[in-house]
């Protein structure tokens, strides 16, 4: 028994409780647990996969006439709206990381972990990593769907790769925010309450129309202050424009800022939680 547990080469039986397990090994084991946990609940992730595809299918058909608005930047609404799938995958990362962590806190897993040589921070990193890996996989699926539906990626192969990176980074931002909120509240119910706000941030952005074609002034102001608009515009530029330096730089700046806030928030909340015992 002990031989199998201690042997790091045996597949799937690395014991993170062994004193010699490094932080990356601890994160790897816990991330695997997080991914398995998320994938074992299809009722949790299937709507997150199905809903964006439904919205994409229905809205791209229902709003196809919007491309006749003078100045509309794409020939097909489907190309314009494909970004909704990456954003929804990122939103799902919030629930994946946040709810996973909140459940671990509620069920006492985090407290039990603190009694072992493992670092509690490894659990947080693992929940975030697990959510990001799932979002990365979803982004690949959405790109394949885009290619299958003849979406013209104006930035070429390199642009598609960058799109994948940006979609994953966006998911990381949302996952970090989800983990931060979970650490602060320690309650999955409280975390559920935040989802409408995240959902609002998506729909109150430039998701459905470019900013210069938005008629309502109040909505233009909202989109300008909503960081999600910059994420949407950055990823979308790679699909319908090509290489738009300004859109990409704005997106990277927003992602760096949100990631920083998320990581700092997680670190602070974790320290506070550890100090409280």
């Amino acid at each position, binding site marked *: 028994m002990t031989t199998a547990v201690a042997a790091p080469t045996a597949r799937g039986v690395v014991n993170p409780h062994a004193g010699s397990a490094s932080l990356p090994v601890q994160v790897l084991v816990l991330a695997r647990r997080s991914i398995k946990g998320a994938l074992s609940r299809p*009722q949790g992730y*299937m*709507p997150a996969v*199905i*809903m964006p595809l*439904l*919205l994409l299918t*229905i*809205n791209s*058909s*229902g*709003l*196809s*006439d*919007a491309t*006749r*608005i003078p100045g509309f930047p794409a020939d097909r609404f489907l190309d314009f709206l494909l970004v909704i799938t990456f954003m929804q995958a990122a939103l799902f990362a919030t629930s994946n990381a946040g709810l996973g962590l909140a459940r671990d806190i509620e069920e006492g897993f985090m407290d039990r972990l603190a009694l072992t040589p493992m670092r509690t921070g490894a659990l947080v990193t693992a929940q975030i990593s697990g959510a990001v890996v799932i979002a990365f996989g979803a982004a690949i699926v959405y790109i394949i769907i885009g290619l299958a539906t003849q979406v013209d990626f104006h930035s070429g192969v390199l642009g598609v790769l960058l799109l994948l990176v940006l979609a994953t980074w966006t998911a990381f931002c949302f996952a970090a925010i989800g983990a931060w909120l979970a650490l602060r509240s320690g309650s999955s*119910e409280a975390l*559920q*309450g935040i989802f*409408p*706000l995240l*959902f*609002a941030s998506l*729909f*109150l952005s*430039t*998701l*459905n*129309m470019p900013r210069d*074609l*938005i*008629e*309502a002034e*109040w*909505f233009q102001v*909202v*989109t300008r202050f909503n960081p999600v608009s910059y994420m949407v515009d950055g990823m979308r530029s790679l699909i319908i424009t090509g290489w738009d330096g300004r859109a990409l730089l704005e997106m990277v700046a927003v992602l760096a800022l949100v990631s920083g806030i998320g990581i700092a928030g997680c670190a602070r909340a974790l320290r506070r939680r550890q100090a409280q015992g």
Partner: protein
Amino acid sequence: MTTMPRFLLAARAVAWRHLYKWITVPANFMPTFIFPLIFFGGFAGALGRVGDVPGFDYDANYTSWIFVFSLLQTCLFGGLATGFTIAGDFQSGFARRLMLAVADRRSILLGYVMSTFARAAVMSAVVTGVAALTGLEVLGSVAELAAMYALALCLSICGTLWAAGVMFRARDPQLGPAMQIPMFIAIFLAPVYVPLDLLEGWLHAVASVNPITYVMQAARDLLAGHPHDTSIAVYAIAGLMGLLLVWALTGVRAAERAGG
């Protein structure tokens, strides 16, 4: 008070409890308001220029166009939220006790329909208030507006009957998506953004046979002060309610057979 039949007394008790839980638990209360308002704000704010598309012929502005969709969505999804309450009651064991306590279990269904109807009325008022602040244009008369709200509130009954039918059978909140997704698809497969005539291909074909399309069109015409084909909408919603009533009642029977 005491002359009220037991059936109605039981239904009223279920309705009061449901409304009380809705008002006192923010987790129940907030999403019912926030989601329709998000859709309304997001669509009315972003898509105003869609109203300028050639062939888009509607007397009121685009905010009014989207408002009707949001109103119907509010009512329909309010009914779906009741499905989660029913499933939660089964999980906590309350529904089992409730089914033992009442002589006629159909009163439980009626209670949920009554409370959701009342809740939908409140939510419709809130959505209307927000729409008024963001430029809602009302061209219809008071009677036409009353008819529009009546159609919307009937849709809340449809939503409740559908959700009750699913959750009396499933008795598990985890099956919520199986309850939500069909209704989500049904309302989005209506002319949400542009008139039916401007829809093309498969979406036009599907929207043409979707009963919600006729309810949505009639409600928009009533808001714009040009009632047109309202009778078709009435037939459509009456047909839907009839079918869904059978679905919900057989769901209650299924729960009875399963022992609550």
